[in-house]
């Protein structure tokens, strides 16, 4: 029994080590929100996962904005406080890290052009181990809460489709 457990532990350790060397980051369900014509900022939301080990999202860049920052929102007694994330956003195998409205987000500061519903823009994410990973971010409605699964949930009810 002891030998079996020991062997199991060893093989798990070997698997982990092997995994760490070739861990693959996936960035899924990216979306952004349509902005006002004169908007100075926007945000991108997405899910990060890694098939083995762990990594850390350190930052990013996009041609649509002067700056890309990692932010989060804290809600304290009904007061919303947006703050930069210190030390990056960790990604661990087995638990996808969701960047979604109300919490972690990728903040686009100094928008060069308004984000238009139905369009998309490239975003490059920089990870501590994996390096640069690029993703295309579709722009949904101005208050979209999740990546579009069913058709057209981006806008506000019946007025939502007018930019398509």
């Amino acid at each position, binding site marked *: 029994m002891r030998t079996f457990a020991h062997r199991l532990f060893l093989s798990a350790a070997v698997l982990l080590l092997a995994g760490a060397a070739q861990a693959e980051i996936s960035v899924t369900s990216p979306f952004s929100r349509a902005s006002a014509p004169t*908007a100075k900022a*926007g945000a991108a939301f997405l899910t990060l996962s890694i098939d083995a080990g762990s990594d850390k999202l350190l930052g990013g860049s996009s041609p649509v904005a002067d700056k890309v*920052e990692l932010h989060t929102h804290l809600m304290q007694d009904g*007061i919303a406080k*947006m703050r*930069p994330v210190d030390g990056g956003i960790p990604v661990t195998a087995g638990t996808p890290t969701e960047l979604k409205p*109300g919490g972690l987000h990728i903040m686009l500061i100094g928008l060069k052009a308004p984000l238009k519903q139905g369009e998309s823009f490239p975003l490059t994410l920089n990870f501590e181990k994996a390096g640069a990973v690029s993703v295309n971010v579709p722009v949904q409605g101005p*208050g979209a809460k999740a990546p579009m699964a069913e058709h057209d949930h981006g806008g506000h009810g019946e007025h939502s489709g007018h930019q398509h």
Partner: protein
Amino acid sequence: MKRRTFWTGLAVLATAALLGTVVLVADRLSPKKSEQGQGRAAIGGPFSLTDHTGQPVTQDILKGKISLVYFGYSFCPDICPTDLQLIGQALDQMTDEERAEAQALFITIDPERDTGPQLAGYVPLFHPQLRGLTGTPEQIDAAAKAYRAYYKKVSAEEAGTSDYLMDHSAFIYLMDRNGTFVRVFGHGVEPAEMLEWFRKVRVG
């Protein structure tokens, strides 16, 4: 400057505590009780602002309409769009007659960025009926005080970001036809809940 910071901090704490209490009270009381509940007299009051089309407005615009009032800023990519979208959805779910009696107001707490033209591009994203209100810093301050709305500028240096941010309370205020406070809804409230309360107020 130090002194001012102290008093601002104190006001902020008091406001946060008061709002917290109001939310708790509003949530716990039954609908009927809450309509006559406490906090009613404490929230709302005179304001003098300018709407996104440049038209000057006062608290008189509340008269004769049932209003949803929200304080936020357009630079906020996350919390404000979510809540404004929910307000837009509540309006969409109303009948035409109901919608004609409804009013949705977005009062900026970031007048430095949210000028009339900025709001003119922003508010229609959420609903054609949403009206954006801005003003001088003093006017915004007075309006926020009347509604016990909390906001605070966090400089870029302080926040560690490339542009300044605004901390702000994220509440949707429901005001009746007399401009009297009915209750607040917290961030992320279901449009159906706003609609339910709107209807209660509408039929009196």
